[in-house]
Structure formats: structure tokens, C-alpha cells
């Protein structure tokens, strides 16, 4: 197309008009792709040539004994820890190793910590408000106003997480389980493409666990979810693909039944009653 016809074409979209931070490109397969990633602390290899692929819309469970590198793996994906070698791609366009935490977060990766971290001095409502997808630069934040649409979105998440009654309570007074829910709620407010959920049911009652499993299952499809969990009952209830990590690399992958029959896995988990 010649320059003139380009200029006269009213429908033409110039390159400089397309947003710079383009959406995640998942046309060519997985949403998260880690290859040959290695991290060591003082010579100890926390992650050892780990290769992992998460497909778009997938719900993946990751299990592994203590020290298998589950948390470190999440640290790498969210930009908290830089690996020594290897590559990490989000979709086929974004190299996560070149980005910092806020960038990665605004790209659509949300993380729930092992220990529930909510802002204890703020109310449940405010916690969700801060998590809401919005322009998070300094001045827009200073002048930000809460619109009706925002309220609706917050109400929606409050309902999903069952925290409607507690919306004006400071987060510090919530029970452990409620904090877990609030944190999941904050993740949902971000409208992430990929959710990283670290031990979501620790300290929950049987009932709460069931609801969490329901919630996570309902999210899959729209969003990709990676769950790291110790509780085998909970993992079984999610009934999806399971990846077993051991000493920083993948030991086995497959359905829960396949994995639990794998002799290598049995050896690692011997006595832990998988």
C-alpha cells in the first residue's frame, strides 16, 4: 500500500495508534512457557533446568515435597527472583525476564501468596478497590474516582467470595480463611489471564475448601490457573492435570491417577500417603 493511499484510507490504523502494551498473544499455544530455568542460592539449586508449559484456560495443580522449588518458581514468574539461566515467556510475545513486578502484574499475572497477605489496615472493600484493574500510575491513582461500574464489579467479587457482610471491616480482623478468600477476591479484581495460587486452602475448613475448589474450577476456561497445594484431597477434587516437582525440576506430569501410580513419585512421597 502506498503512502498516499494509506493516508487517504479512513479506516487505516497506523502503527503508532495501536497500544504499546499489546495484549497477550496466545494464538501460538501456551500462555506460560518456562524453559531450562535454573536458580541457585549459594550453590544450592532451588530450581534445576525446569521446563513447564501452561496452556491457555488450563487449571494446573503443582505438587511436590517441601523444598521442591514451588514457591521459587512462582517468584520467577512474577519477577521477584531472577533466574541464573533459562527463559520465561508469557504468551508468545512477552519475555517475563525483562520485566519488573508491577509490569508483570499489569500484564495479567496475579499471585496469591502462601501466607495470606492482605492490607490489614484497610477495609475489605478498599482491599478490593486497590486490586481492581485500573490505571495504576501515580497521578491517575491520586485523582481516581470510584464509579458505579467499579462498585458493581467489587460487589460482584464480594458475592463470589462470600464477604458481602464484611465489606466495611478492616482486613486485620478477618479470620485466616476469610483472608484467604479476600486474597483470591483481590486476584479476581485484577482480571488476570493467569492466576498463581499458592496453597489456597491452608487453614480452611472442609466446607470452605469445597467452595474454593468450586470457585477455582469455575474460573478455569476463562482464565488459566496454577495451583500449588499440599493437600492431596483438595488436588484430587480439582481433578485436572497434575505436575510433580522434585528438587527443582519436573518429576512427573499427568492426571492425578497416573501421577500417583508413578514409581518415582511414590518413592519421593513414600510415607506421605499420596
Amino acid at each position, binding site marked *: 500500500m502506498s503512502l498516499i493511499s494509506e493516508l487517504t484510507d479512513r479506516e487505516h490504523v497506523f502503527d503508532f495508534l495501536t497500544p504499546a502494551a499489546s495484549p497477550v498473544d496466545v494464538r501460538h499455544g501456551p500462555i506460560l512457557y518456562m524453559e531450562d530455568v535454573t536458580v541457585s542460592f549459594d550453590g544450592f539449586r532451588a530450581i534445576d533446568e525446569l521446563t513447564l508449559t501452561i496452556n491457555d484456560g488450563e487449571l494446573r495443580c503443582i505438587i511436590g515435597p517441601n523444598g521442591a522449588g514451588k514457591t521459587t518458581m512462582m517468584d520467577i514468574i512474577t519477577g521477584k527472583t531472577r533466574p541464573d539461566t533459562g527463559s520465561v515467556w508469557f504468551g508468545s510475545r512477552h519475555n517475563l525476564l525483562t520485566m519488573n513486578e508491577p509490569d508483570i502484574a499489569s500484564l495479567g499475572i496475579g499471585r496469591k501468596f502462601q501466607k495470606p497477605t492482605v*492490607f490489614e*489496615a484497610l477495609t475489605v472493600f478498599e482491599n478490593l478497590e486497590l486490586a481492581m484493574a485500573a490505571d*495504576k500510575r501515580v497521578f491517575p491513582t*491520586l*485523582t481516581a474516582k470510584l464509579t458505579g461500574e467499579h462498585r458493581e464489579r467489587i460487589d460482584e467479587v464480594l458475592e463470589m467470595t462470600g464477604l458481602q457482610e464484611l465489606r466495611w471491616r478492616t482486613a486485620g480482623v478477618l479470620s485466616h480463611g476469610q483472608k484467604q478468600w479476600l486474597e483470591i477476591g483481590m486476584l479476581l479484581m485484577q482480571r488476570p489471564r493467569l492466576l498463581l495460587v499458592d496453597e489456597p486452602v491452608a487453614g480452611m475448613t472442609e466446607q470452605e475448601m469445597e467452595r474454593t475448589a468450586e470457585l477455582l474450577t469455575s474460573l478455569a476456561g476463562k482464565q488459566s490457573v496454577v495451583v500449588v497445594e499440599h493437600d492431596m484431597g483438595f488436588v484430587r477434587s480439582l481433578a485436572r492435570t497434575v505436575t510433580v516437582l522434585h528438587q527443582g525440576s519436573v518429576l512427573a506430569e499427568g492426571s492425578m491417577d497416573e501421577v500417583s501410580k508413578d514409581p518415582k513419585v511414590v518413592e519421593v512421597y513414600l510415607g506421605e500417603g499420596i
Partner: protein
Amino acid sequence: MWLTQPLNEKSTRLFLGLLGAALALVTILHLVFPQGHPMHMSIYTVSLMGKYLSYALLAVAVDLVWGYLGMLSLGHGAFFAIGGYAMGMYLMRQIGTRGEYGHPVLPDFMVFLNWDSLPWYWYGFDMAWFAFAMVLIAPAALAMVFGYLAFRSRVTGVYLSIMTQALTFALMLAFYRNEMGFGGNNGFTDFKDLLGFSLSTDATRLGLFIATGVALAIGYVICRGIVLSKLGRVSIATRDAEARTRFLGYRVERVQLFVFTVSAMLAGVAGALYVPQAGIINPNQFSPIFSIEVVLWVALGGRATLYGAVIGALVVNYAKSVFTGIMPEAWLFALGALFVLVTVFLPQGLAGVLAKLRGKGSDDEKDLTEKEAAA
């Protein structure tokens, strides 16, 4: 608008009302009652109050970063002093030929040092608008450079406290040097007039007092505006869980830089208002002990309340004036004991005591119930 939001708030209105009443009372006591009358307030006392108010503004600035951002700055005295020096440079240029040596351009100390021309960084300070702009720009520039370096590499907690202390210590050493061109040990003094008003008249000094009160009111509203905005909530989030805030997609270091810079500018304004009322500015204003004393005012008044900072600044400085008058040696004992007692027994400060006395929950909770009612 985020700035008008605090004006709808009960506590801010109460604060502004009390401040206005205090300004009016002092003015009346000074103007209406004639000299010699038992109710008369001398101009000396009025200026003393003015100095207290500038300290209160400095304390509000410190509370903004310490209370809401969790950064214990032990170097805010530096921003205060820089604002003061910017004002001092303007006042020095206003002296003109009335100095000891009668040099039309050079301040006395430069003549004394045998300098033959004005250093480049003194240019422009003969113009009020330039000097007043510098009162804001110079502290802001320092805060931005320091903050950019510190927050970028995630220096927080006690490390940041130590670095801010080192910052003000280094500046103090530098300003003690004659070669710096800021009057060395003696700093600036013997000011004559400000914007054409003679600093020795009662009217000018009363005007300065009122101006300081107004600046405190504006500074308070700005801080309260930030605190009430979403950015204020992000600040609190940063204070309590920095990593979490980052994972939510906020650029924590920029939030910190913004709030820190605003705070430094307020401190600079406070310093600029302090200097003409105190009549002197010298490198002692940079001393680490001054900065840490400011933190005590905030701690005593109650952290993360803003009005507590004002109360703390007024109470401690009034006590200091009284104490140093009666028994000067005891003051440092009292100050030291205050540091210990406040941190160990009064972590919420006087504001916490007030809240407890009223039998209500924390201020924030009350605000929220209001918000809920409004929603």
C-alpha cells in the same frame, strides 16, 4: 477533586476551625489589648508562635511519609533547612547596601571572604518570585534525586532511616564550609526586609505569623487530600505489605517518590516561613538531632493522624521553651525520657489517648462509617 475532598470531612473542618480560631485569638490578643495590659501578647510571643506553626507544618510533612508510607525519615530537617536557605538568600540580597560593608551586591560574609563576584547559584535570588519558587524546587529536587536512588534499589526500613540521616549529616558538614558560599558556620542573619516590608515592624511579623498559619492549613489539606485519595490507600498498602502492592501492579517506588517529594516541598515551605521569624538560618538546622526531634513530635502527637503531628510539635516546643527557661540542663533529660516513654508506653501517641478517652474506635473506622452512609 482530590484536594476538596478533605473539606467535606468533619475532622478536617474541625482542625481548620481550631487553627483559624487560634490565629484570630493571637491577633486579637496582640492588636486589641494595648502594651502593658495583662492580656496583651507581645510581638516576641507572636513570632514564637509563628515558629511553632512552621515546626507544625514540618511535622505534618514528616507524618505524611512516616505515618502513611512507613518511611522513617531522619533527614527532613535537611529539606526544612534548604527551604530556609532559599528564603535566607532572598533576604540577604534584599539587604543591599545596608550591610556592614555596604556592598551593593555581595552579602557581608562574601565581602569578608574577599570574594569579588556572586557565585552563579546566587543569581536570581534578588527576585522574590524566583526565590519563592526555589523554596519549593530545591527541596523537591533533592528529594527526587535521593528518593529516586533510594526507592529504586528498594532501600526501606532502618536502612532508609540511616541513609536519610547520613544525607542531612553530609549536608551539614558541607554547609559549615565557607567555600560553599552559604555563610559557613554563621549562616545568614541581620535580615532587613521581605517583599518591601521591614522585618522589624510588628505588623510584618504578625503578618508572617498569619501566613504561617495559612500555610499550615493548606499543607494540612494537601496531605489530608492525598491520604483520602486512592493514592493514600496505596501508600498505606505499601507501608504494610510492599511486595503485595507491587504484585497488584502499582509502581511502589513511584508512589514513594511522589509522596516523599510532596513532603519535602512542604518541609521547604515550613523552613522558608521559619527563617524570617527566627531571624537566622545556619547549618545547625541540618544537624541529625533536629531531624530526629521532629520525628519525636510526630510520635508524641500520634503517628498517621496528621493533626497529631501538629499537637506534638506544639506541645514539645512549648515544653522546650518553658524548660530551657527554668532549668536548661534538665531539658535533654526530659527529651531523652520522652523518646523512651513515648515509644514504649504511648505507641499511638496523644491522638491515641484522645481516641481512647472518647471511647471510640480509630479515626479511620469512623470515616468509613461516614463513607458507608454516603454510599
